[in-house]
């Protein structure tokens, strides 16, 4: 991947942008962008609607149940990095004194791994400051939208109200049947191909931090609404080959998981870029941002 500023648009995106106003996207780019800061290749996903199993753990009538599937609608285009943040990109944040060095010892256009949720947040803040743009981690829903057909969600066992162990056993069997072997060495960006939306390396061997908090939710007995939920924002949703939940300070997913279950091979991240509102754009043009 080039170090020069490059912005490419996926095909889905190009169509969406025509309606939305391409000029905005291009106009905002050079503002506050230092020469040495490369801009990540982006994929812009048009608006759309899809079914999504919610993140978290769900109880109904005192028993754990599968995550409810909710129709999610993406109203505005979503600008997401085509690749996970690379070691060289992350290294510039480290060189700037903002980011803590990652635990991985590779270099170049390999996804940065050995980074916690805290590290990912620091990087997003730093990149936003360097570029004058609004970079952040995607939500679980945004990640799933970008992941498209490569989204798997949680590996869930079958519930049996009379035998809680059945859920643990079926989940264990399901995980085993998936037959995924540990694959700890991060590979060059693009090694795991692109999905139907042009997003690269989804569900490879680097799991990605999202901004969605882990939550316990109670589903009403009618099954139609969430009666109550409690978020734990010290734990965030991690997405990849499967969806899992990790404490924010964990850098190595292998040791951050539970006694049983598939641990992420590596933890990394990619960011989304929020488009400035027309008001913000106008203010920037006047040099007031």
């Amino acid at each position, binding site marked *: 991947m080039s170090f020069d500023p490059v912005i490419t648009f996926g095909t889905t995106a190009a169509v969406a942008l025509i309606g939305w106003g391409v000029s905005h996207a291009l106009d905002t780019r050079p503002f506050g962008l230092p020469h040495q800061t490369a801009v990540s290749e982006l994929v812009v996903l048009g608006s759309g609607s899809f079914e999504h199993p919610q993140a978290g753990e769900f*109880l109904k009538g*005192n028993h754990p149940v599968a995550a409810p599937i909710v129709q999610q609608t993406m109203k505005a285009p979503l600008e997401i990095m085509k690749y996970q943040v690379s070691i060289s990109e992350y290294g510039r944040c480290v060189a700037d004194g903002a980011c803590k060095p990652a635990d991985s010892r590779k270099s170049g256009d390999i996804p940065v791994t050995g980074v916690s949720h805290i590290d990912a947040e620091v990087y997003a803040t730093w990149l936003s400051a360097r570029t004058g743009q609004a970079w952040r981690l995607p939500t679980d829903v945004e990640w799933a939208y970008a992941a498209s057909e490569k989204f798997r969600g949680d590996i869930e066992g079958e519930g049996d109200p009379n035998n809680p162990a059945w859920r643990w*056993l079926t989940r264990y069997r399901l995980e085993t049947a998936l037959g995924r072997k540990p694959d*700890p060495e991060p590979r060059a960006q693009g090694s795991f191909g692109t999905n139907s939306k042009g997003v690269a390396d989804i569900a490879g061997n680097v799991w990605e931090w999202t901004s969605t908090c882990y939550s316990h939710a109670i589903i009403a007995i009618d099954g139609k609404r969430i009666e109550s939920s409690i978020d734990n924002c010290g734990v965030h949703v991690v997405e990849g080959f499967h969806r899992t939940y990790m404490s924010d300070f964990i850098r190595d997913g292998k040791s951050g998981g539970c006694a049983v279950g598939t641990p992420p091979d590596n933890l990394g991240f990619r960011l989304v870029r929020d488009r400035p509102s027309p008001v913000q754009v106008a203010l920037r043009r006047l040099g007031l941002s």
Partner: protein
Amino acid sequence: MLTRREALLGSVLTAAAVASIGAMPAVASVKDVAGLPREKITLVPPPFVHAHDQVAKGGPKIVEFTMTIEEKPMVIDADGTQLNAMTYNGSIPGPLMVVHEGDYLELTLINPDTNTLAHNIDFHAATGGLGGGELTLVNPGEQVTLRFKATRAGTFVYHCAPGGAMIPWHVVSGMSGAVMVLPRDGLKDDKGNPVRYDRIYYIGENDFYIPRDEQGKFKKYETAGDNYDDTLKVMRGLIPTHVVFNGRAGSLTGDNAMKAKVGETMLLVHSQANRDTRPHLIGGHGDFVWEQGKFANPPAKDLETWFIRGGSAGAALYTFLQPGIYAYVNHNLIEAVELGATAHFMVEGNWDDDLMMQVEAPRAITS
């Protein structure tokens, strides 16, 4: 030479003579032994154990085993870390050999010429000759046959002991296993009542000491000999880089998780040839535990965690009462989680609400 036993019983070995063995130690002549029935056992790799009678049928016999030593690289964790392994019969640990008290264990040990090192075997179950080590040293291209009488009932370690610094190095390269000598009339609980098992699993725990390069990455060596100097330095620090069951982190999980059903009784034999350990079954217990592994001593009851001394093997009997996934760990949890000493059991059956139930699922705290 007329032995005391021959004088007492005559040269014909009868069933009555068999019964006297435990109570009245007697020395059989080579001729006597030669007349004993023979049984040839094909060993199976752990955690499985070859078919055997829990209560001996008939009198003592000679139980024949053959093990071939294999030196080969083996992967010991999910990161692909490589051990220049030395193995009895290709597995770490070597297979569990089961005989009965009073039987003769006869092992043919083969060291093929594809190997590069001399090896031997020291049976903790055997008496004399450094456990047989003195009589079994074989160079590549040689084989040897040793017979010893199983005079004490229990679980016992065997390991390679080719002298000096070679001893610990061969052991931490994988060369250990266990023998189980069952009482002729089977296992007994603390009150002397017979107990039986429906399943038996053998877990060998190993501590490995893999050298690292300047970057902290585990080093890979062409041959075992190449790693000797570096490995010895790590060994002298006494801090293992890996503590694993059956040769590899994760070797007894997923597809290889051990299986059982609610109501089934299992005997779990656990050996550690080099270093102390403390097995624990998360969510279960040891109903009867021979912590030191010697069946002449009554088993301890209802243990939560048991202690296996380095250089010994113990046995725990447990009847599963609840279904689910059980983790069997070395309850130094750092060693279990970070260094690899975790195995899983998948246990099917009906849940018992009387033993445990979630009265109320997690919900918001109400004041």
